[in-house]
Each structure stands twice: as structure tokens, then as C-alpha cells.
């Protein structure tokens, strides 16, 4: 039952926040923080049983939903889901708190959408009925779309529609793949079910498995995002309000990684193994390409967005390396990226609110004026670049260590790619006086990142 409460509290909290919106802007904020705090405590209470480690599954819930089609309301929680849910709720609280000054318009509806996004994401992390998973997968898009479209920056309509079409279109491919899998299982066992555990180990020909796996893979690859499917991300991240960017980068991208870990590899182990070289190649291209584009940006938010593509490339690399080291690294990387990128988006948002621009060429000499903010920016920027002693380093290091066992070539390219980008960065930066000054202030996270990440 506790899993249902995890979902219900932010869901109902969202409706409540909307309802009290008429009483003044403080009320929705209080309701939102309150609901999320209770939810966080509830999730934290599950850490104990998780640490006891009796079985992989800490809590489960199975209610009949659409019995005629073999669909049930099945929620299961294991360590991976728990960690990601904790991250989701924590970033949810952060998003509410930092929106105090930025969101002054339709406050109630804004917080409703934030909480519903959190609800959808928690649902994605919990659902182990494939239809329920798809339900939440689509459901989380709608409130996020509203957050971008209603409270975003100048180009928000374009960005929000692009975000929606990319993710929903790929989601439909996943639906077809889910149904393909379900029907194959149906023909074999005579039982129509969307239950994850029943579908594990369904036997099928190699070609079928590869096609179905691709359906899942593309949906998750768009979300993650993986190289050719990434184009929605810079727009959506840039145009979203700060809270939206934090949730997008911190949480929504993780649903893609979670899907790869939970569904793609376990459901289609053979096909995933066959596909691994391609996926790892895409990962390496993403790492390189994201980093290259990141340092070509003047818009600070776009820069952080592109650096996310690069970081998520490591996640993809780790997933398809598929050994304990790499997978530990993937989870670590997801958490660390959630925190550090979330923080960077908050800092950019705070800067934009104060100086009304995100253009870094206009930001020279900020350290003197804003020493503390710049200090924080530097800490999170070096965290993001993977300085030893900070979380991201552990994640990336473990991933590289693990993927070395799977493929030396891709690991070397991934490792070296950072050197390449940093050299390119070093070539560009000094040509522009202001940019150089800025990178010296530490306010140019990615610029600093690549220089220092050279192995």
C-alpha cells in the first residue's frame, strides 16, 4: 500500500495546490512542499527494509485494473527505483522552493503541474505492468508540456511542442513493441498479460527480438537522449522555467536510463548483446558531440543542456557494457548528474533573474559582484566535469572501468573524447577576451570542465 501512497500524495497534493491557488501565491507553495516532504519521508522509510536486503523487491502492490486485457495495477519497488524516487522527490522540493520569485503567475496551476510531473515520474519508476508503465510514461509528458508552454521563456511554444512530439512519437513505437512482445507471449503461453515478470524470458527469433528491442530502445533513447534523437533537449531545457529545467534534466532524463536498465536489457538480453556495439558507438558519439556543441554555446542554459547529452552518453555506455562495475557507475552517474546539473540550472536561473540574460559574453567579471553564487557555480561545475572527490567522478570512473572490460576501443575513445573537446575549447576561449575572463571566474562550467577533465 505504501507504494500507492507514494503516488497518491503528490497527485492529490497537485490538485490541492491548484485548488488553493485562489487564496494567494503562498498557499500552493506550502501545499506543494508539504506534500513532497511527506512523500520524501515515506520513501525514506523504505530505506531501512532496502538496506536489510532480504530480496531484490522491497515492496509490491498488485491490484486488478483492466482484467479483460490482462492488465493489472502492479507496482514494485527495488533499490534502483527507490534511489531514483528519492532523487525525484528531493528535486521536486528544490523546484518548488526555487520557483518562489520566478513564478508569480498562475501559481496554483504551476505547482499542480510540477507535482503531477513528479507523480508521473514516480509511477514510471514503480510500474512493472508494461501497460501501466506506458500509461505513466505518457502521463508525465502532459504536465511537463504545460510547465514549458505556459511558464517558459521566449521560444517556449516551439520548444514545448517539439518536446512533446519527440517523446510521444517514440512512445508510440514503444507501445507497438510492448504489444508485439505481449502477443508473442500470448501465442506461446495462451495467457494475455502485461506483467513484466511473466514476460521476462519470452522466447522469440533473433530478428523479432531485435525489432522489438529497437522499439523500446528508441523511446528510451529519445528521453535519455542518445545522439541522433537529442535535438529536442537543448530547446526544451533552454526554454523551460528553472524548475522545469531542473526536473527535465534531473529526473525526466533518468526515466530513459531507467527504462534501458529495467526493460531493454532484461527483456531482450540476446538482442541487447548483439546491439551493444552500436549502442556503445552511439554513446561515444553522444559524449563527444554533446561536449563539442556545449562549448560552442553562448547561452549558458544551452551549454548545460548540451553537457547533459554528453553525460548521458556515459550512462548509455555503462548500460550496454552491462557488468556490475559499469552498472554501479550508471546509477552513481544518474544521481550525481541529477544533483549537479539541477544545481547548475538553478544557478543559471538565478543569474537570469538578476541580470536578464543568459548570454555568457555579457557576464564578464561576475565573481567580484556575486562571489558566493560564483563559488557555488564553480563547485557544481567542477563536480559536473568529474573532479575526483565529487560524485560525478565516481560515476564516470566506474563506467569507464566497467566498459573497459566490455570494449576497449569505445572506452578509450570515450576517455579521450574529453581530451579532444578540452583542446578545442582551449583553442576557442582565448580568442574572445570576455569569454576568457568569464571562464576564469568559474562561471563557465563546461568550459572549465573540459579543460580539467583531460586525463
Amino acid at each position, binding site marked *: 500500500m505504501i507504494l500507492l501512497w507514494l503516488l497518491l500524495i503528490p497527485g492529490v497534493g497537485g490538485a490541492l495546490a491548484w485548488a488553493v491557488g485562489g487564496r494567494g501565491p503562498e498557499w500552493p507553495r506550502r501545499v506543494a512542499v508539504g506534500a513532497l516532504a511527506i512523500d520524501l519521508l515515506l520513501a525514506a522509510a523504505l530505506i531501512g527494509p532496502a538496506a536489510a536486503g532480504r530480496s531484490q523487491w522491497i515492496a509490491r502492490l498488485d491490484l486488478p485494473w483492466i482484467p479483460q486485457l490482462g492488465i493489472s495495477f502492479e507496482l514494485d519497488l527495488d533499490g534502483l527505483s527507490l534511489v531514483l524516487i528519492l532523487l525525484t522527490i528531493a528535486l521536486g522540493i528544490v523546484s518548488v522552493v526555487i520557483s518562489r520569485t520566478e513564478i508569480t503567475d498562475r501559481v496554483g496551476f504551476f505547482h499542480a503541474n510540477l507535482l503531477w510531473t513528479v507523480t508521473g515520474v514516480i509511477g514510471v519508476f514503480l510500474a512493472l505492468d508494461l501497460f501501466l508503465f506506458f*500509461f505513466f510514461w505518457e*502521463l508525465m*509528458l502532459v504536465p511537463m508540456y504545460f510547465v514549458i508552454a505556459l511558464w517558459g521563456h521566449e521560444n517556449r511554444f516551439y520548444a514545448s511542442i517539439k518536446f512533446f512530439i519527440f517523446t*510521444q512519437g517514440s512512445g508510440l513505437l514503444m507501445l507497438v513493441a510492448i*504489444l508485439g512482445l505481449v502477443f508473442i507471449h500470448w501465442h506461446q503461453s495462451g495467457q494475455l498479460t502485461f506483467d513484466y515478470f511473466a514476460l521476462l524470458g519470452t522466447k522469440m527469433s533473433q530478428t523479432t527480438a531485435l525489432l522489438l528491442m529497437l522499439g523500446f530502445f528508441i523511446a528510451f533513447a529519445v528521453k535519455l537522449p542518445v545522439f541522433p534523437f537529442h535535438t529536442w533537449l537543448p530547446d526544451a531545457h533552454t526554454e523551460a522555467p528553472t524548475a522545469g529545467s531542473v526536473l527535465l534534466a534531473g529526473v525526466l532524463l533518468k526515466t530513459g536510463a531507467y527504462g534501458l536498465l529495467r526493460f531493454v536489457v532484461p527483456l531482450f538480453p540476446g538482442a541487447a548483446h548483439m546491439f551493444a556495439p552500436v549502442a556503445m558507438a552511439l554513446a561515444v558519439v553522444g559524449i563527444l558531440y554533446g561536449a563539442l556543441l556545449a562549448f560552442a554555446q553562448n547561452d549558458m542554459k544551452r551549454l548545460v543542456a548540451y553537457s547533459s547529452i554528453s553525460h548521458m552518453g556515459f550512462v548509455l555506455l555503462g548500460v550496454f557494457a552491462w557488468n556490475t562495475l559499469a552498472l554501479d557507475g550508471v546509477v552513481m552517474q544518474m544521481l550525481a548528474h541529477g544533483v549537479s546539473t539541477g544545481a547548475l540550472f538553478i544557478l543559471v536561473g538565478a543569474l537570469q533573474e538578476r541580470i536578464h540574460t543568459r548570454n555568457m559574453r555579457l557576464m564578464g567579471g561576475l565573481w567580484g559582484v556575486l562571489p558566493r553564487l560564483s563559488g557555488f557555480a564553480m563547485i557544481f561545475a567542477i563536480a559536473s566535469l568529474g573532479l575526483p572527490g565529487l560524485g560525478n567522478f565516481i560515476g564516470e570512473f566506474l563506467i569507464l572501468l566497467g566498459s573497459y572490460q566490455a570494449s576497449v576501443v569505445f572506452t578509450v575513445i570515450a576517455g579521450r573524447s574529453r581530451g579532444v573537446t578540452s583542446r578545442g575549447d582551449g583553442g576557442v576561449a582565448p580568442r574572445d577576451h570576455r569569454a576568457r575572463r568569464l571562464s576564469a571566474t568559474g562561471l563557465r562550467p563546461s568550459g572549465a570542465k573540459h579543460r580539467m577533465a583531460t586525463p
Partner: protein
Amino acid sequence: MNGAAFTAFAPFELLGALTIAVMLLIAIRRDHRLTALATIGGLALCCVVLPIAAPTASTPVTPLFVVDGPALFYAELVLLAALVVAILSYTYLDGMGDGPREEYYLLLLIATLGAALLPASVHFASFFLGIETLSISLLGLIGYASPRREAVEAGTKYLILGGAASAFLVFGMALIYADLGTMSFVQIGVLARVANAPDLFRLAGVAMILAAVGFKLSLVPFHMWTPDIYEGAPAPVTAFVAVVSKIAVFAVVLRYFVLAENHADGALHTGLILIAVLSMIGGNLLALLQDNVKRMLAYSSIAHLGYLLVALLAARSLGIDAAAFYLAAYAVTSLGAFGIVGLLSAPGTGRDADRIEDYRGLFRTRPFLAASLALMMLSLAGMPPTMGFIGKFYLVVAGVGTGLVWPVAALVLGSVIGLYYYLRVLVAMAMPVPDASEANPPAPVSRSGTAVIAVLLLLLVTLGVYPAPMIALIHMTVGQG
């Protein structure tokens, strides 16, 4: 017609009696409110009587009709939709000022009678009579009671094109009769199975029927009339055309093609696949280009009927159930969408609120209607938590289960294209209010209209989150026994 058949047929008899009663009422006393009340009350009574009078087993009523699960399910859907249209029409006509309005309800009832009988038809004669009763009164509804020139134009268009389509229908039926010597659906199926050689008469006949049905369901390439009629007709009539007539015709087509399966030697299957793919892609692409919400919804309905053909093609595996659920979802959603368009319109001014600019800032000026319309659009786009999501899921289940590669691919592609224009409406509603309307606050919206929208919204979300009861009902009535 024995006693059992008479009882089973009670809701249809009641509907006929109601039509006559309303006609007499108008002759005695012209009063808009009274006529509307009689119509609404009578339709509500029919909706209640139908499940009560429902026979336990399928009951043939003369060779023309059969009252069975599917007939009852779709007839109830038709009656409920007509009830909603009647309530919405009252608000709309009331805002139009003086002039004769009472005959509108008479036409509405006759059209509903034709539509309600279609799902029960098992014979070419009743098939044709039902469609004609429906279309001819629709013609009046489209052009009647509106001072707008477009309405008259739309009515004339419907008259000419609809007449041509009916001619095709009759000719097609005649050709099949010439070949097989029977007009009963069941007999056609039986005889066609025996006569194995492909036959030119039968093929031509089926092709003509398909063309006529394609016109009535506005499928590509027989869709040309749709946007003009949808735009020209008053919003509640558009809702009627989009929902009631589509449900009725689709129900009879479903019965015909399932009962008299394969009488066209496979050519029908290929033709339907082609039409389905064209409708899904074409409808969605054309909808992209529209700035007029009614025209956009017209093209989108073309696409939705294309989606429904996937269910028809998958009739052997879950397709029948999927079609029933999708039609119900489509009915709720379209009634809601056109209902809101109607509520926002000021019919007295001779223009419906159909331009996309009319929706600017709606989230601010009318939050409830805007949120409702937003959910309707999401349902049309197939997003959770709405019925449209479950419906589309059901269709894809049926399509994948039957291995319909191309139609399913077109469905996915069409849905992605469709997102763009549905979201456009949402974006428009989210935009800042244009200055002009800030000066004068929006006119109040009628309470009955708002209540109808609220009920539709409740259905849309409840059955979108917990569809099991609806699916159970469909299994019970429509499901193949």
C-alpha cells in the same frame, strides 16, 4: 412481429412515437422551450427504456432488423449522443434570437431515429432506409435555423454529394442482389462462401457500397465535403454529424462486413487497408494546415475514422471490442469539443467561435471550459488520463494482434502528426488574452451547457483511468459470442 419482438423493439417504437408527438406539439403550440423540453425528456426516456427492454437473447424483428448486443450498445450510444446534442442545441438556438426554431427538434428526432435503427439493420432495405432517413433530415438540420450563408451552402453541398453517394449505395446493393439474389446480410455471407469464383458483379457492388459508406464516414478519398459541412453547420449540428451519424453508419458497416465477410474475395480487405492508411495520413496532414478549429476537427475526424478502420480490419481479434470502445471515446470527446465550440459561439452574431484566435487566452477568461477543451484535445491526441488514450491503445492492440503492419504504422505516424495541431489549440488557449476582450468580460455561459460538458469530462477522465467497467460492458454486449 410477435410479442417478444415488439418488446425488444420498444425503444425504437418509443422514439418513433416521440417524433410524432413532438410534431403534433409544434402544430398545437409553437414554443421553443416546451419543444426542447419534450425532446430532451423523450430522448432521456428512450435511453432509460433501452436497457430495461433489452432481450436476453438476440431477437429478430421482421427480416429487416435484429435486436442483439451490438444493436443495443450502438443504439444506446446514438441515443445518448443525441440527448447531449439536443441539450447543447437548446442553448445554441436560445442564443439566436427570434425565428422558427421548433422544427429543428423534429429534424433532430427523425435523424436520431434513422441513426438508432442502423445498428440493428441486417438487410439492405433497412440499411438504405436508415441511412436515407438520417441523411435527409441532416440536410435540413445543417441549413435550418441559421442566418449564416455558409450554413445554406453547406446544406446544398450535402444534398448534392449525399444524393450521389446514396445512388452509389443503391446501385451497389442492386448489383449484389443481381448476383446472389438476396438482400439479407447473413444470406449474402452464406451464399458468397458457397459461390467461390470471384464475381465481377459482386466486386463492383461492394466497391460502390464502399464508396458510399466512405462518403458517409468521410474517409479519404471521399472526404471532400467534410470540412465545408463541419464549418458551415451550426456547432451542435456539426457535433451530430461528427458523432451520431458516424457511430450509426460505422455500426451497420461493422455488422455488414463481419456477417457477410469475404464476399468480395479479398479485394475488400485490400481496399479497406488502402482507405484506412490514406485517411489516417491524409486527414492528419490536411488538419495541420487549418486555422479554423471546426475545419481542423473535421480533418481530424477523417483521421479518427481511419483509425477505426484498423479495428474493422482486425475484426477477428479484439477489433470489434476495440471499435466499440473507440467509438464511445470518440463520441464523448467530439461531443465535448464541438459542445465547447458551440458554447463559446454567439449564434446571434452569425458566426461561430471557430477561428483559432477566438481561443486566445481562454485559460484566463474561462478556465473551466479551457481546461475541458484541453482534456478533449489530449483525448483526441490519445494521451492519458483520457478515454482517447485507452481507445487508441485498444486499436493498436487489435492491429498488432492481427499483424496489420501498414495500418498500424500509419496509425502511429498519423498520431504523431496529429499531436501538432491538437497542441496548437492548447497553445492558443495558453497565450495572453488579446487586449480587446479584456475591456468587456466574457458573456456568461449557459448552465445546462456547462453541466453537459462537466458530465462528459467526468466520463472522459473516469473511463480513461478505470476503463474496466466499460470494457466489461462491451464484452457483454458487442463481443463475439
